[in-house]
Structure formats: structure tokens, C-alpha cells
């Protein structure tokens, strides 16, 4: 009964380079790769890890992540360690061309050389896959890579992470992970017109690919205000905590990246995020009473079976809506999208059940979705502004594409 072993066949054996690297170096690289969630962009779900080809939708067009296995023709097989470090540290490819900042080198630049070398050794140890990536789908002049020189000049500062000697080692480790390999700002920071982070909005929430990523700052008004450090750790480990459940992009980050972190690293991230102060929020507009009445009826007829009539949900099973960061987000995109299309809680090692919400787009009109979204954003102490039917309609259209 050896058929199990057959599953491992079918791809080329690991290249020589890996055999020369020590086991501990490869292990270190594997962990660094997890902290950077390289697999998230460099793998089409269901295909061989790191074989590339996945499209990242940006406001400027679609950028396809390359194959980063060590195939010589289509991957990194011919790259030296120095060339690899230059790409990670400066955003410059082996042939000297500049990489698009969709590849988060502005964050990876903070990684020390030995860490980057370990990433190289790990990737080199993987089975090689021959696979071309599709051409990027970008308009002129963005496909002129020399325009990126200008971008880099404006927005990019290469340099490894420098610890703050006034803070604890734990805080510094958290800051390194968040600002470096884990590149949280990639989603959780609003971008300017050139697609670079708005510095003043750092980790205060962003919107990409028609998802609103909430604020992940602590402080008195941040998205993580009510989360304890332990709850942040629990969320990054298992995808659920007493406040929420992860789905969509964050689900992938947890599945491929943070659930594999050490407890100490998750704690360090929590310490760092909790320490980030936030701005006071504007008071939301008042919602129309008839909209709230309709919203309540829709809620009680549709949502209570999981989220419970008082919005308390079932912590770690069905996300509570009362006090939810996503529900209270100034940007209602995520709430509306989840109602339209449903959402799946990420299955993790801690919580393997992919508890999911169904799609309501066939069942509720734009006006009804706006009403129920407005209701949940204004109830049980929540303070989200009203949602209009037009906003729902626009997102519905956008999602059809």
C-alpha cells in the first residue's frame, strides 16, 4: 500500500543548490517566505506553489506575478544570490530592468541580507516548474519601465530595517515584520494616485480589488481599539477571534502566511499594532428612519440565524456584527460586497471549518442591501455611515467584470 508516495511524484526533483544549503538555512528561508506570503501572489490557487501566473489587479491594470521556482527558462534558475538580493532590496530585476512596486520591494528592502539569502536557498530547494507567466496588462506609459525610475525617486527609500533603541525588542520585531516582509500596508494603507502609500494614512485602512481593508491601528480610535494583544494573535493564528472572522484576501494571508508564524512573532506584531495611535473618527450621518425600519426587517428575516437578532453573532463561528471593524469601517465596500457575494471564513489548522455566508445578490435589491447595510452599521453601538442604493449598484456592476 504505497500509493501515497505516488502523490509526491510528477515534478522534477529538487535542484542541486538546495542540497548544498544546510537544512537549517532552508528552514529559515521557508519561515521568511511565510512571513512575506510570497505564495499568495506567486501561485494560482490549486497550482504548484510559487509557479507564478497569478494576476494582481491594480488601479492601473493587471500585473502577473512571475514563476519563482528555480526553472532556468521561466523562473529564477539563473539568478545569483546577489541578483536576488538586488531585486528584493532595490526592485531591480536580473536584467537590470525595474520591477513594478506591486512586488512589495519597498517593504522587502527592510529585510537583512542573510534573511534574503535564506529565502533564496529555500526557493532553490523547491521542485522546479516550467511555466511562463502571461504578459502584464498595463496601459502606456505605465508599461515603460523607466517611468518606474521616477516612481522610485518619488516614493521609494531603500534600506534595511533599523530598530528603535528606545523600544523593546518585541516591539521592534513586530515593527520589522509589519513594515518589512509581512507588508501589511500593501492592503491596509490608502494609496495615492501613483499607487504609493499615503504616509499620513499608514495602516488606517485601504481599498483594493473592491475590498475595503480596515484600519489595523490600535490606539483609542483604531480598528484594533477593542482587540487585546491575545485576540490579535488568535486571529492571525486561527482566522477567528471573538470579534471577527477572516475571509477573502486576509483569509489567504492567514492561510498561507500568519498561521505559520511563531507565537512570539504574532505577539510582537500585536504589540506593535496596538501601539499605533489613531485619529478621531467623524460622526456618521443619521440614517433615514424608513431605511432603518426596512433594514431591520431584512436583518431579522435573513441574518439572525447566524448573526443573532442582537448582532452578537457566535464568536469564532459566525462573526459578531456589533462592534465589528469591518461593519464600522468608513468605507462600506466590504459589508456590501459580503452581502452581495457571500464570504467564506478561512479554514485554518485551528479552525478547519470554512463556515460561510451565502450570496444575497439574487435575493435582495440594491435598495434592500443598502437598507440592511445601513441598519447593521447604525445598530448595537455601531457608527458606520448610511449606504446608498447607488453605491450598492456600482459595486454590483463592478463585481460582474
Amino acid at each position, binding site marked *: 500500500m504505497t500509493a501515497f508516495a*505516488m502523490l509526491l511524484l510528477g515534478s522534477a526533483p529538487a535542484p542541486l543548490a538546495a542540497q548544498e544549503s544546510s537544512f537549517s538555512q532552508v528552514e529559515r528561508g521557508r519561515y521568511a517566505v511565510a512571513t512575506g506570503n510570497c505564495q499568495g501572489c506567486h501561485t494560482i490557487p490549486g497550482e504548484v506553489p510559487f509557479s507564478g501566473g497569478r494576476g494582481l489587479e491594480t488601479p492601473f491594470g493587471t500585473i502577473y506575478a512571475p514563476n519563482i521556482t528555480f526553472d532556468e527558462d521561466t523562473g529564477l534558475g539563473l539568478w545569483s544570490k546577489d541578483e536576488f538580493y538586488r531585486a528584493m532590496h532595490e526592485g531591480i530585476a536580473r536584467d537590470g530592468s525595474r520591477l513594478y512596486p506591486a512586488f512589495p520591494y519597498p517593504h522587502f528592502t527592510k529585510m537583512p541580507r542573510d534573511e534574503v539569502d535564506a529565502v533564496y536557498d529555500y526557493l532553490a530547494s523547491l521542485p522546479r516548474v516550467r511555466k511562463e507567466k502571461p504578459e502584464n496588462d498595463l496601459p502606456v506609459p505605465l508599461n515603460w519601465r523607466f517611468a518606474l525610475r521616477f516612481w522610485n525617486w518619488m516614493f521609494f527609500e531603500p534600506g534595511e530595517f533599523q530598530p528603535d533603541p528606545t523600544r523593546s525588542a518585541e516591539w521592534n520585531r513586530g515593527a520589522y515584520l509589519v513594515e518589512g516582509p509581512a507588508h501589511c500596508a500593501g492592503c491596509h494603507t490608502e494609496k495615492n494616485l501613483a499607487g504609493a502609500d499615503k504616509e499620513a494614512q499608514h495602516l488606517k485602512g485601504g481599498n483594493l480589488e473592491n475590498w475595503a481593508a480596515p484600519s489595523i491601528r490600535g490606539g483609542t480610535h483604531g480598528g484594533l481599539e477593542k482587540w487585546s494583544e491575545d485576540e490579535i494573535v488568535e486571529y492571525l493564528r486561527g482566522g477567528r477571534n471573538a470579534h471577527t472572522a477572516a475571509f477573502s484576501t486576509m483569509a489567504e494571508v492567514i492561510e498561507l502566511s500568519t498561521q505559520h508564524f511563531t507565537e512570539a512573532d504574532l505577539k510582537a506584531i500585536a504589540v506593535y499594532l496596538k501601539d499605533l495611535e489613531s485619529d478621531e473618527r467623524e460622526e456618521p450621518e443619521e440614517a433615514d428612519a424608513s431605511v432603518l425600519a426596512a433594514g431591520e426587517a431584512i436583518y431579522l428575516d435573513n441574518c439572525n440565524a447566524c448573526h443573532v437578532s442582537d448582532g452578537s453573532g457566535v464568536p469564532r463561528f459566525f462573526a459578531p456584527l456589533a462592534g465589528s471593524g469591518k461593519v464600522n469601517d468608513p468605507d462600506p465596500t466590504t459589508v456590501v460586497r459580503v452581502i452581495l457575494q457571500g464570504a467564506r471564513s478561512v479554514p485554518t489548522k485551528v479552525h478547519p471549518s470554512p463556515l460561510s455566508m451565502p450570496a444575497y445578490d439574487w435575493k435582495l435589491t440594491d435598495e434592500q442591501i443598502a437598507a440592511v447595510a445601513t441598519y447593521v452599521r447604525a445598530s448595537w453601538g455601531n457608527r458606520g455611515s448610511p449606504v446608498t442604493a447607488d453605491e450598492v449598484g456600482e459595486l454590483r456592476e463592478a463585481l460582474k467584470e
Partner: protein
Amino acid sequence: MARKLPHVDVVLVGFGWTAAILAQELTDEGLTVLAIERGAWRDTPTDFPPTVAPDELRWYWRKEMFQNNARDTITFRNNRSQTALPMRRWGSFLPGEGVGGASVHWNGQTWRFLPSDFIAASHNRERYGELPEGMTVQDFGVTYAELEPHFDRFEKLCGIGGKAGNLNGQIQDGGNPFEGPRSSEYPNPPMHMTFAQHQFAKATAELGLKPFPGPSANMSRPYTNPLGCQLGPCSYCGFCEKYGCGNYSKASVQTTILPVLIQKPNFTLKTHNEVLHVNLDKSRTRATGVRHVDVQGNEYDQPADLVILCAYQTNNTRLMMLSGIGEIYNPATGQGLVGKNYCYQIMSSADVFFEDKYTNEFAGAGALGMVVDEYNGDNFDHSGLGFIGGGYIANWTTNARPIESQPVPEGTPSWGSAWKKAMAENFLKATSVGAHGASMAYANNYLDLDPTYKDAYGRPLMRMTYDFTPNDVAMSAFLTERMKEIAERMGGREIKLNLRDGPYDSMPYQTTHNTGGTIMGTNPSNSVVNRYLQSWDVPNLFVMGAGVFPQNAGYNPTGTVAALTYWAAAAIRSQYLRSPGPLVQA
């Protein structure tokens, strides 16, 4: 010409409860396991979420959850002198189809058979003398004590809510004092009882009976099972049996096992592929795999070292017959065993109508109920009664779905203004007490292959020859009297008895508790499979499901089916894999 596929260690035919349990157990052993399901892939958020689940027409009346009769069905007659005709649509029972099988659309009433049920023949003989002429009841070949740890595992897998009545031999207040000793309390507390259960509990207590909460696979609170799978709390929506659960609050393959199982690299599930027969080698004592066909009509030979039939009871029996394994039972000669001891159950009920109290039974759940067990199995003295066995009497508030549930008093016509008025007046003010009666095997009730009717692939349909037996009728009459005494004390204005008299009718829904056909037992002359559910004829073939029950007890069968599955899995893991071959020497 069938295409030959790569070898797997184990092939499971069908993918319901028994297959999922085995897949989980055998992949843990490192084996490659392939499950072949003839129905569709289906899962909670896409196929039966709350947005579409509470739809009586679609799921029950248009039978979207069940085996598609256009492809095959069962022919039926009451006795051998008649001509069997196909059940052109399901009626009295509803075999499941699709991923999760009937675990998707069961009520969740999760019982253990009594210790005496497993030794029904020897126990009753010892206490009451010889069994009546024609009764073919026999012992299971496995005891309650042997199965106890496996019952326990299944209850923890499912998060059963209930109250123990016998903990390690100590009788517990509030539980079923007649149950076999259990090693631990139920993993969850009982369901939240409503008005009707309170009335039932009061009435039965007044009669000196011991009411207890029905064991429920609808979650009484959020539950994380030993595999880490999460089940939400039941919201008492009243759409359990015949429906998928939209909010993960009913134990099913999807909610309890699949999230963990599907992640294993050594497990694969194929859907919309139907197994046509088990392939045997020339000696016909070894299975080489199965032949299956996909919905596009492509045929495949799937080689495997171990073949396990996990389909519905009637389908497992039919697969044995179509594969030519064992001899088909012939009641005229008494020869053959495959198809023998087909049993069902006999249900009767009493509706209770209240004058000014509302039962509001739309607020219900599949296993929300109070039960008394004084008249089940051999919990009472049968001397002079003229029957053996019994059944529980319960007040379940499962639903008030109005196409199906029409509580109208005695004498109400079936249509017109009088019917309409009676519905308007009583719909929210009625409840029902039911007796869940056992079924004893008789020589004339059996399954074989129909000589006339064929399925979509041209294979003979299964033929069912069945009628209620003298034992059933006497037992049901006795249970109905006890039930009437209870119903009359529940505070209603009037009651209506729904007797099960006359011949068995294949159309009105009664229960999907069909058993027998591939019965287990102590030796090859009295059974199709041994005490480990291993075929006597083909030792690398195992048969799961209620088909192995030599006769049916007065309980819902799922708990016992699952315990037997864990028991068989343990035998495969600890004995068979070490030394493949017969686990019991004939």
C-alpha cells in the same frame, strides 16, 4: 470498454455518513482512499444556505435532496403472490443522494440500540421461549458493550445534545434509565424544550413514566468537535428532516468530517460517478476494485485492495446481487442470504388539539423532543402480549411546514371549506405524539432483483416484498394504546389517532429506516457479513449501513449504523491491515 484507473488502497462506494467516517479513519492509517458518489457535490453555503433552505416545495415535494427516481427506483409488492410495480416516485421512505448522503437531510435523532436489541434472538428465547413460526430474528454477533466506545465517538463527533440516563451503570435522574451504560455524558446539553414537550413531560410523569430529552444532532449550543470542526447553535427553524441545514447547526458529513478529511492528500472524492458493480477476480473470492460510470457515460475500472460498500441499505444489497457476491435469498426454499431479513419500522401517532393553547410548532428542530422508553425493546414484560420488541413514544416538535403538516381533527374532510376552516383553527394549536415501533424479521419479507423493470443502465431494479408482520401489528396496537393514554393527558381538547393498520403502503411517508438485506451474524450460514461487517465470501469487501441489521429496533438507526462503522474501521485498522484476510474464521 472501461478505462483502467490508477490503483488506490481503498475505494468507498457512496459518500454519506459511513463512507466519511471510514475515509477519516483509514486516511489516518496512511491509506489512499477514494470515495465514489453517484450524486452531486453539495455544501452548505452554496446548495442549502438559509437563503434557499426553507423551501418546502423544492426540497421535499420536488425531492431535490433525494435519489433521482428517473434513473432508478425500487419495485414493490406486499407479498409474493402479487406483481411488484416500480415506486415511480419516492413515498414511504426517501433514500439520499449526493455528497453527505442522508446526513444532509436527516432529523438528527441519534440513538443507541438497547443492549438486548443486539441479542434479540437469544435474549427473547431465553425469556419467552421459542420465536413464532416464520420469524427470522437473530443476534447481531456484536454486543452493546463492544460498541459502546464507538457510540461514544460518534456522539462526540456530532455534538449530540442529551442527558445520560445510565453513566457507567449508575442511573441518572432526567435521562433514559433503560439505556445501556454509557462511558460519558453527552457532549452537549439537551435542546431547549417548548410548550408541547412540557405538556408531554407532565403527562408521562403523571403516568409514572420517566420522560427524558431526545438525543439530538441539532446543536444545543456552539460546538467544536474532536476534529476541530465547528457546528453553530440550532436556530429552531423547523427545516431539518428532508432539508439541508443552512447554518451549520446539524451534524452531517459536511459539518463534522469533510473540512478535515478533504485537506488530506490521501483522500479523493469523485461525484456524479455511479458504481455499477464490484469487480472480482477469477476465484470470485477477492474484489479487485469496482466498475463505475460517470454521468457522461464513460466507464472506468477502479482497482483497489479494499472495497467498502457505503451506499444506502437497498443500494448496498443490490450491488451485492449485481456483483454476484453471495446467493440471493429465496423465500420459497429458504436458501440464500443476500436480501434476507428486510425490515422497516411501524409508526403510529396521536395528534393532540388544544383549545386555547398555541404549540407554534413552526419553531422546532429535527430532534427537539421528549421521550419515554418504558415500552421499547425488552424494557417491559412481554409475557402473554403476543409480540416481542417495542418502540419509544415521543413528542417531537420537528416542524409545521404546511404542505406536509396538516393537523385537522377526526372527521375533517380532505378538501373544501370544512378542511380549510379546520386548518385555520388548528394549525398552530396541535402537536403529535408518536410511537417509533421496531420491526422483526420474517421469512416472507425480503429483497431480490426485479424480473421486469430496469434502471438507466439496463440493470434490474431491486424488488421489495414487504408487509407488516403479525408481530408488528400486535406491537403497534399495544404501543398505540400507551400513546393514547399519554396524549389524552396532555391537556388538549381532543386527540386523533393515526393508526398503522392494513397492509404496508409504499406511498405515505413513514420513515427512511430500511434495514436488512446484507445482514451480519455469527457464521456464514446465517449472515452475509461477519461481526466486523466483512463479507464472508469476499474478505476484502466490507458492507456498511443498516443493511447489516438482522432486524430493526424501536429507535432511529443512525447512531447504531455509525457505531458499527467505527467498530469495523477499528477492526480494519488493528487487525485486517496487519493480516488481510477473514477476521472471523468460518
